């Protein structure tokens, strides 16, 4: 141990540090300054940025001893006299905060910039923050916030609030609101799972198989057990209950035992529980495992062949999904033109900034408590209880803040392992993934191969569509059949086509599992169909937007699944709004390549695409959420449901809805989420369903509570209930103002608990192949993207995106803007930077350095057009937006690239190397 003396946030500290300790370890685990976050430990993401002698540095790769005698500033040190620094305040007010995990790094880096430069340009901000990553894609808001803070610092006046377009004429719904969880996220006090410590806490680490397919023949634990500080090592026989878990099918073993099968490199073999994470990891290296290798299958098309190696006993086909409408052969007979193309999308990783972390502990009353950032707390509870072989009532899942999810925190990660470790040791146990483990273990976006055949009349009328999809769901089902189901139903696009036939094969392979990821299969299909539509437009010599508008779904259309769309179909509106705006900014001919003046090797053009996406689970899955709304003795209201805040802004949406219904100011409403003891089941946070489903649950509960309060006050004061008004946090009864805390006590005095629980059931849906609606609502979108292609190097930049989304109703305009911009930026990443690469089932992209998410430097100028075609059941007309915003971005970009340089992209991400050589091949003389 070395003695380290350092000055942190003006306070001197002297600590003993162990060999190998990094500055972030000292700050977080020795000084308890957990505001500094660790997201990669490889100097890639900037989340851990602190100021060392006023300069931003990465604390996760800075040996602690380097800072001996130095002065440090961390996120916790920015408040002065209890007030937020203007930069923190600007991040809150301008919506720069979503999941919050990268925010300390953004703010510290931005703070250093503002120290050097009082009036930074957008370019200065992009240069300073270009290696400080935000997976929520809040970059445009971050730029705005830094500039607003700079303005405030220069002028001495308070940070300005953004001017937001208002939606509708409700009192709070549809108006500007900043998120209530933002303050803790900007001042470093926000608590994510790894920020929790418990007395006597041990640390678990998990031995992964490391081979993609094989039979475990031996596990040798002696040497590992002998490592000092190791408490226990758990293997498959130590699972007292159900070994297999899975969100839909229980096919995924928590631990693979001797004689059992390993199906991917991330399968768990043993859990070491030790005094420290370091000791646990050291002991992992001393476990001997013998695995008899089996032949590997890694491609979904190969997996479908009858002689392919079998991943599961019943074969490799998870599900064959079919959509049938009309008679597709007849349709193609009627067609004048037939297009037939195959498209490819790779596996992708969510790269939520916060790696998975679970902490389990046994409570005094012998229950198991698990702290975890999970998208489905009740599902976790069921799975943990089943693995432990105990009743669900013995398990409590406490949702901590979540540093991003995007679908990647729906499956079990460390929850069961931590619970098993606590169960066997009786001590609290934390299992924290590093980025490497996170990349290897959790489910990915499905890699797909999608064949699209389109038949059209000369005038552009679509008459037939046939699609064939193969989806790689990897070693375990996760949500694979649901994801590929959505891929199938969206594969012919948001168009009116009389004859449709789609077949999808969701295949097991020895790759890491694939599951939920924003866009949920539909994203892959939209890339395929929207590229095909541009190709078809060219074949027919019909303008691309015209072709889409001609065939677009509209009110009264019959979708490919046979569902009649009788309301809330804003697709045409989205197309026309984008088209109109495009003409304003780019003239009448935006899709024709233009050389940049003075730079003849740079070619620019716009591209266009549309999308649709269901809201909610659909296809026959019961979709419900329960919420409670309670008037507390202090006169404030609490809304409770187990749904998850993953950065998308659910807290604000529920706060707005409850405040609206109760006639209260926003600050009187608190939202409590994700605790299986304290909050009722809101269902999974998936499928763009929370605003609609949990929003409706809160809305109904709040309005029932208001009615109950009115009834009570009406009785007590002998006035008609309808005469009671709620204004500015007061009840007005017969001209008398009653404070809400007094109202709460009146309710209690009258023997009426001021609490309403409401279970909301979404409209019923029906499975594919049956009559009836498959989904209760769809969102629609159109986007145009402008790219610049360097004809010499193949480099592509996305310059501008115009995005119109039919969201039904904008409940939270600032949050909606964040979802749209963040979705577009993720789309830019999917088109240009992201590819999860596997070699024979082994993960090559096992570090953040190898899997690139888009940075602020790649962020285009984004314009969001909100289109509101309300859906009658949605709260105030709202439907989902979380997923659709990413979907059209990808084909809009790849179509734009074709328009700029004449090379068609049928595979993402864009391979710059291939593109440059293709451009050169087509024009041998160069640009």
């Amino acid at each position, binding site marked *: 141990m*070395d003695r380290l003396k350092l000055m942190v946030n003006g306070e001197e500290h002297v600590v003993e540090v*162990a*060999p*190998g*300790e990094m500055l972030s370890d000292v700050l977080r685990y020795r000084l308890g300054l957990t505001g500094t976050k660790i997201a990669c*430990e*490889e*100097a890639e993401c*900037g989340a851990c*940025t602190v100021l*060392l002698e006023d*300069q*931003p*540095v*990465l604390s996760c*790769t*800075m*040996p602690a*001893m*380097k800072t*001996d005698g130095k002065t440090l500033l961390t996120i916790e040190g920015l408040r002065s006299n209890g007030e937020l620094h203007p930069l923190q305040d600007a991040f809150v007010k301008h919506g720069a905060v979503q999941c919050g995990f990268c925010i300390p790094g953004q703010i510290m*880096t931005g703070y*250093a*910039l503002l120290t050097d430069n009082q009036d930074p340009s957008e370019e200065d901000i992009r240069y*300073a*923050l*270009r*290696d*400080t990553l935000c997976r929520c894609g809040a970059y445009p808001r971050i730029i705005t916030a830094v500039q607003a803070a700079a303005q405030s610092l220069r002028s001495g006046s308070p940070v300005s609030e953004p001017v937001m377009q208002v939606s509708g004429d409700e009192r709070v719904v549809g108006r500007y609101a900043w998120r209530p969880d933002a303050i803790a996220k900007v001042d470093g006090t926000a608590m994510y799972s790894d920020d929790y410590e418990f007395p006597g806490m041990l640390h678990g680490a998990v031995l992964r198989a490391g081979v993609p397919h094989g039979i475990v023949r031996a596990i040798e634990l002696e040497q590992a057990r002998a490592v000092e500080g190791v408490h226990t090592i758990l293997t498959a026989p130590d699972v007292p209950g159900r070994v297999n878990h899975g969100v839909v099918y229980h096919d995924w073993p928590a631990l693979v035992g001797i004689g059992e099968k390993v199906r991917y490199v991330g399968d768990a073999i043993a859990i070491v529980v030790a005094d420290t994470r*370091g000791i646990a*990891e*050291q002991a992992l*290296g001393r476990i001997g495992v013998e695995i008899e290798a089996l032949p590997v299958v890694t491609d979904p098309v190969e997996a479908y062949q009858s002689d392919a190696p079998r991943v599961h006993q019943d074969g490799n086909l998870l599900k064959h999904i079919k959509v049938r409408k009309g008679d597709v052969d007849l349709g193609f007979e009627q067609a004048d033109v037939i297009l037939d193309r195959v498209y490819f999308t790779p596996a992708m990783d969510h790269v939520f900034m916060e790696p998975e972390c679970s902490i389990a502990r046994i409570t005094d009353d012998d229950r198991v408590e698990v702290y975890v950032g999970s998208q489905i707390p009740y599902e976790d509870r069921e799975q943990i209880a089943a693995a432990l072989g105990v009743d669900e009532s013995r398990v409590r899942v406490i949702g901590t803040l979540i540093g991003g999810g995007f679908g990647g925190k729906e499956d079990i990660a460390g929850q069961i392992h931590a619970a098993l470790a606590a169960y066997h040791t009786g001590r609290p146990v934390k299992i924290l993934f590093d980025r490497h483990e996170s990349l290897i273990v959790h489910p990915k976006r499905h890699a797909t191969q999608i064949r699209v055949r389109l038949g059209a009349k000369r005038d552009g009328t679509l008459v037939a569509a046939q699609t064939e999809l193969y989806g790689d769901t990897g070693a375990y089902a996760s949500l694979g059949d649901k994801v590929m189901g959505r891929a199938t139903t969206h594969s012919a696009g948001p168009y009116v086509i009389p004859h449709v036939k789609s077949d999808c094969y969701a295949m097991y392979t020895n790759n890491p599992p694939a599951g939920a990821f924003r866009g949920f299969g539909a994203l892959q299909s939209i890339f395929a169909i929207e590229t095909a539509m541009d190709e078809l437009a060219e074949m027919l010599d019909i303008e691309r937007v015209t072709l889409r508008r001609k065939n677009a779904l509209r009110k009264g259309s019959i979708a490919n699944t046979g569902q009649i769309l009788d309301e809330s179909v804003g697709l045409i509106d989205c197309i026309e709004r984008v088209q109109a705006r495009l003409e304003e900014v780019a003239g009448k001919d935006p899709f024709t390549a233009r050389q940049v003046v003075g730079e003849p*090797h740079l070619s620019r053009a716009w591209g266009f695409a549309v999308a649709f996406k269901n809201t909610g689970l659909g296809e026959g899955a019961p979709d419900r959420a329960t919420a409670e709304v309670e008037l507390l003795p202090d006169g404030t209201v609490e809304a409770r449901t187990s749904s998850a805040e993953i950065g998308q802004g659910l807290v604000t949406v529920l706060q707005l809805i409850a405040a609206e219904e109760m006639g209260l100011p926003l600050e009187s409403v608190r939202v409590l989420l994700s605790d299986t003891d304290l909050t009722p089941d809101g269902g999974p946070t998936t499928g763009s369903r929370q605003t609609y489903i949990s929003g409706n649950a809160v809305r109904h509960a709040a309005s029932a509570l208001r009615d109950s309060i009115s009834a009570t006050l009406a009785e007590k004061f002998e006035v008609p209930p309808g005469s009671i008004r709620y204004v500015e946090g007061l009840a007005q009864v017969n001209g008398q103002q009653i404070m809400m805390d007094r109202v709460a006590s009146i309710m209690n005095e009258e023997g009426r608990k001021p609490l309403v629980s409401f279970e909301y059931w979404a409209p019923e849906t029906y499975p594919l192949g049956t009559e009836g609606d498959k989904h209760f609502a769809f969102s629609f979108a159109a986007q145009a993207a402008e790219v610049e292609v360097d004809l*010499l*190097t*193949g*480099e*592509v930049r996305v310059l501008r995106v115009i995005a119109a989304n039919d969201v039904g109703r904008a409940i939270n305009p600032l949050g909606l803007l964040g979802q749209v911009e963040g979705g577009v930026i993720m789309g830019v990443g999917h088109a*240009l*930077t*992201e*590819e999860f*690469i596997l070699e024979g089932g082994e993960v*090559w992209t096992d*570090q953040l*350095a*190898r899997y*690139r998410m888009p940075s602020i430097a*790649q962020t285009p100028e984004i314009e969001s057009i909100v289109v509101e075609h309300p859906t009658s059941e949605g709260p105030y007309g709202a439907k989902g937006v979380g997923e659709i915003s990413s979907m059209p971005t990808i084909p809009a970009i790849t179509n734009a690239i074709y328009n700029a340089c004449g090379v068609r992209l049928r595979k993402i*991400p*864009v391979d*710059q*190397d291939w593109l*440059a*050589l293709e451009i*050169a091949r087509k024009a041998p003389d160069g640009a």
Partner: protein
Amino acid sequence: MSLWKHYLLPTSIQEAVDALSELDGTSAVIAGGTDLLLDLDQGRHPPVDTMVDITRIDELQQVRVEPEGIFIGAAVTHNEIIHNPVLKENVRCLVEGCGLIGGPQVRNVATIGGNVAHALPAGDGTIALVALDAQACIVNSEGETWLPIGDLFAGPGVTTFDRSRELIKGFRIPLSGPGEGSAFDRVMRPQGVAIAILNMAVWMRFASDGSIESARIAVGPGGPTPFRAHALEDLLSGRIIDADTLHESARTLQDEIKLRTSPYRATEAYRRHLIATLLDRTIGRISAQLLE
């Protein structure tokens, strides 16, 4: 597992080299550590008993003008380089190369000596120093030796000096004279590791008649060590810059360089394709500088 057992913070070169000598090969010199720590963590560097941190040695942090040229200490960070007025004036390609690396957090700790000691064939700072014909000073307990920077490299990641017993003190670059200029450029790939697909630094001196008197060109990766394009340099000598010269330059460089395909990074064909563009850009920028 801990990446080292002991951490030393010597404040003089003598103290550092004495420690290295005493530790007899079990230690590693650390400056910013941005490459070394990842190599250790990911198993590309053998375990280290003692880290000898050289960032508190004053002399290694200096940039100063000496009679023989500009001295840049090995522990000078990338951010210090890009903000140093003397360097901006004299060694433009180094400033440009260092400005493209990382964000401010990495540039604040990553040092020029570390970039060179890492010995990658396409290190941005290294390629610039090679084009500038820098001399490097290697120190051990016996004393110091000056040698041309190109002599430091033995292969990808391999140096001719013993990194567990010796350290780089710094670099010396001649001051820029009349008619001289330099430029750096590179092409990156949006996916995968942030190492240049191809980078290039060019230094040129023009005669008063506008012809090239002398040129030095470094390219990475163009072989196992940072590549110096001698055939192209010979070709350029005495030529004026016009379309023919640029065209012939690209052909000459394509002939002499050893390009290869790196999985998930670039094909050999693409790298070959980029040569003309990088030459056009760098030489074009030098011409523009001299007209300023």
